């Protein structure tokens, strides 16, 4: 029983982390219909900020983190994605892949290929007991932050003018433009928010690993892709659900798979995604915008 509860907490924490990543990707996809591979590099940038500035007081470090990563996200949109916006989905996809590759290697160029380590906030690596379950502070923070983010994002999308415009754009950009939604502004704001999400993600991820490499973001972002696909491209709630499903399945596989099969966990996961895409080509939640029209 305790093992089970422990598993639930682990699954929630992992799912929460995936969800923060997946939200950033799904948000961009919903307005731009582009999979942003370079989301992982936003996380990498954040991780470098945290580790390189390890001596700076935490609050200031977080402030710098947010400013840098949000700035990088907005800049990325302006420099790389805006010029190819009209050129079709494939071109945008390749562009984001190229930006990701470029930044990954720019990190090597600037910081060298070696791994760097440092502590983000040592308190996070301690844990507390909740009844019979031991909870890592970091995991608790991840879960709480995700909940807060979900509520904040929902309020933003439902209550603010720009949030409503963003939802309209996600539904049908052409029509939204006709009623006065400014594309450039909406997309810039979406990238800003995805940058904020990436900043938070990088904080949590770096606190967990304590090291930064030029590919620190890649693996989790791959998982986040899977979560977004699983949930249904472009649907934010779908992305969150997908992330938690994925977190749960990962934890379950980790527990249940025989030892010799554990290294194949990711292969199983991705195979499972493949199966989901076959059974439900549009993902778990099919949005109106993703339906094909003749």
């Amino acid at each position, binding site marked *: 029983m305790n093992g089970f509860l422990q598993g639930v907490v682990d699954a929630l924490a992992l799912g929460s982390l995936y969800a923060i990543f997946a939200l950033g990707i799904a948000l961009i996809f919903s307005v731009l219909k582009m999979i942003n591979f370079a989301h992982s590099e936003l996380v990498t940038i954040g991780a470098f900020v945290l580790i390189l500035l390890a001596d700076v007081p935490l609050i200031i470090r977080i402030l710098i983190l947010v400013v840098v990563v949000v700035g990088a996200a907005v800049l990325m949109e302006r420099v790389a994605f805006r010029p190819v916006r009209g050129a079709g989905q494939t071109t945008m*996809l390749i562009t984001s892949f190229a930006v990701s*590759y*470029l930044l990954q290697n720019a990190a090597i160029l600037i910081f060298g290929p070696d791994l760097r380590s440092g502590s983000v906030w040592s308190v996070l690596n301690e844990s507390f007991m909740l009844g019979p379950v031991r909870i890592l502070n970091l995991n608790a923070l991840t879960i709480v932050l995700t909940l807060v983010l979900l509520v904040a994002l929902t309020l933003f999308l439902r209550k603010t003018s720009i949030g409503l415009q963003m939802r309209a754009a996600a539904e049908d950009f052409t029509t939204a433009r006709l009623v006065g939604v400014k594309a450039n502004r909406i997309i810039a704001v979406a990238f800003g928010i995805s940058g904020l999400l990436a900043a938070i993600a990088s904080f949590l991820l770096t606190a967990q690993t304590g090291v930064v490499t030029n590919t620190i973001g890649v693996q989790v972002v791959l998982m986040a892709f899977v979560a977004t696909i699983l949930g249904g491209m472009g649907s934010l709630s779908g992305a969150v659900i997908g992330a938690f499903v994925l977190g749960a399945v990962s934890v379950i596989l980790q527990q249940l798979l025989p030892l010799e099969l554990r290294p194949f966990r*990711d292969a199983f996961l*991705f195979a499972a*995604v*493949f199966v989901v895409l076959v059974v439900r080509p*549009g993902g778990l939640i099919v949005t109106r915008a993703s339906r094909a029209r003749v």
Partner: protein
Amino acid sequence: MRVLGFVRRSASTPIILALLVALVTIVANSAGDASLRRIVVGAVVNMIAVIGIYLFIGLTGVFSFGQLAFMAIGAYATAIFTVPVATKRALFSAMPEWLADINLPFIPGILAGALVAAVVAFLLSFPMARMQPLSAGLATLAILVAVYTVAGNWTAVTNGSKGMSAIPTNTTMPVALIAVILVIIAVWIFQQSGLGLRIRATREDAVAARAIGIKVGRERGIAFVASAFVMGLAGGLYAQLQGTLSPDAFFLNQTFLLIAMLVVGGLNSLTGAVIGTILITAFRRVLQVIEAGVDIGPLEIPGRPGLTEVGIGIALLVVLALRSSGLTRGTEVSWDSLVRFGKRLTRRGTPSAAPTAAADPESVAGLAAAERTTPETATAEAVIEPERTPGA
């Protein structure tokens, strides 16, 4: 005469491309030392892989990150089929008996490896056909990760992260060159066939394609399997070139490099695949030399790791922003396009007012299209003079 006419109309593209590849390969091969020669052979193998990617992405318009999974499968399968039995027993003790007992000569080994890749693609093509293009593109990413994970962990077959070694090295320059020329010819015939036309129609407009009876999912599936076969072939040649294999050779970095080659040349033409490979390979070589550190007279540039990749990334972004359909803009080089380009060079500014009487759809189309719109649409020009500004 009739033979010549046929060549000019229908077969000039693969002949020009084959000559170009042979020329570049032989010149580069004779100009450099042993290490450069090895790079040249590697580049030829890369070209086969780029053509393999083109065969799916270029013809169907469906994006895929996963074609290198089939290169990996082809490489590992070829390695397993061609490493001598005794060596396998000694080096890969965990390998199952029946697998260790297989031993094939070079060419059958490579073909068998490519066949394994094609069979896996065939099985995957059924679920793929059900997906929307974007989902399918991401599903291929899932395939890539799954194959990478399996290759890195399935010790019994792939020797896990330690990788395969002691693979016979038969991929020499002539072998690679003959292989790439055969692939160019085969792909040309494929894309000009009725089947190839139907596949290209699904790329142009899937709805219209369905309206005229084309089974979009099926045609995409065929292109997927054909692509996997060529990828498998490239993988087999790669295994027999390197002598060793590790899963990292078929993951995201290599995927990026090969896709960059295809996109820079132009996603939608065979010419683009060939020219993109040549250009990016040359560019990469230059960057690698700079990365290692160079002295230009008094100016000393220190070596910087990562420079090559950053340079290629920037090059790709620039091409995407300025000319997203690549240098060739999806057109094929042909005899007529070259002739026209030659005339243009000799008589600058006076556009040829006498279209030839030839009836080759591809080349004359390129010609006519170029005359009506901006001059840069023409293939040969696109390739040789990419910097010319568009006409008003």
